[in-house]
């Protein structure tokens, strides 16, 4: 299997349980960093990481600006910032205007990750109620990365996976179980 270097997951309404299931089933010695860009309340800075940590096998954190990216850690985009992957294997954050009413914006995180990891990136879009993520996932594909959407039939709110399917040909349409099985094979 292609040697992938990172996984990025975007989700919004209806994705919390799916994300929880995914991160609770990754092995303890997972060898890739996992970036989570999930829509969340702008003004609530604490609690989300703690809620996700309960089920997670891997450590989760909201990175500070310029933090280095390390394998085997789950990184959650912090409230009210865009989260970028920079050259030099580190994060940068931004307070630029919201995109698709969202900050963090899934598109912006995915675009920066696609640019830096090229074909070494796996992008996953889960359930959600708007079209944020579609342009980002398309960029992952254009840069040679692998693209996955959660099966719209299984998604609680299928708008986001459907928006991806409308603008591009994704590599896999997977159920949550298939996503889990696939990510486990990577690292």
């Amino acid at each position, binding site marked *: 299997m292609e040697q992938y270097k990172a996984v990025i997951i975007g989700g919004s309404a209806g994705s919390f349980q799916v994300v929880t299931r995914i991160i609770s089933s990754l092995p303890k010695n997972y060898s890739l960093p996992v970036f989570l860009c999930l829509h969340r309340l*702008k*003004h609530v*800075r*604490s609690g989300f990481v703690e809620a996700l940590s309960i089920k997670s096998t891997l450590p989760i954190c*909201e*990175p*500070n*600006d*310029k*933090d280095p990216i390390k394998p085997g850690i789950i990184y959650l985009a*912090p409230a*009210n*910032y865009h989260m*970028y*992957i*920079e*050259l030099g294997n580190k994060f*940068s*954050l*931004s*307070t*630029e*205007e*919201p995109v698709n009413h969202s900050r963090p914006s899934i598109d*912006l995180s995915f675009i*920066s990750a696609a*640019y830096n990891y090229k074909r070494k990136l796996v992008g996953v879009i889960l359930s959600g109620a708007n079209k944020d993520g579609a342009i980002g996932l398309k960029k992952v594909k254009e840069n040679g990365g692998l693209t996955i959407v959660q099966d719209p039939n299984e998604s609680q709110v299928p708008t986001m996976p459907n928006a991806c399917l409308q603008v591009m040909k994704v590599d896999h349409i997977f159920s949550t179980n298939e996503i889990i099985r696939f990510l486990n094979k990577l690292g």
Partner: protein
Amino acid sequence: MITDIGIVDTKKIIATIAENYGIDFSNLALTAFKRRLIKVMNDYNFSSVVDFIHKIETDPRLFEKYLSEGMVDTTEMFRDPSFWRELRDIYIPELIKTFGNIRVHIPGVSSGDEVYSLMILLKETKLNDKVSVLVSSLSQLRLDAIRNGASYDLRKMENSDANYKRLNENGELSNYYRTENNKVVLDASLVAGVEFLKGSYIKDLNEKGFHLVLYRNRMIYMNSTLQDQVVQKLFDSLVVGGILCIGAKENIETSPEAKKMLCLNPNEKVYKKRIA
């Protein structure tokens, strides 16, 4: 429409700006800077980097506009209401108690968000006459806009209104602005006593003796090299006992000056200068 520009072109643009205007953008964080360039180029309908560079070289007045419009807004007033509450209830009163009259610097501003937020707090706590405020920016256009009440998209005010409510349950931020053609204009009398200064904080400004410096979410647009220089400048500009406020997810722990500061609140990233 331009969707991406490569590293080589980005570097050419940076070199052109440095050569013609003496402004050094070579140590900015790349992703956000590229996004700003792309935004400005599309706003002004450029279809090639060559044309854009030519304009920068030949039209200083337009360059001022690019500079102003390319800057990142903090995009809301009273961002992190919990921070403003502590500033209002703890840090400013303590500084005044210790030092009497205090001097505040808000360097490198792009929008009026931080300035107006602070001036509203000072007015409401009736502390204006004990506090003098300096605001500096690279962009004269931005400074002029702030002096004249700034001007915001009405939509943008939703967040600011909500933030203010979290800080002051019974207050209405709309008491401080009027609405004109879907734009919001803040009450410019709030900043009547504020001093405005054009210049780069790194290169031109050597103002010192501040008791409070607000510098939230500006270093996220810099690389580590520039951030370390800036932290040293900020540190030097503070009196011993003075306070530096940075963004909630910014991190200066790796810079040498961090050891000479005490972190008063790790969540809001408030630092106090312990020793010179």
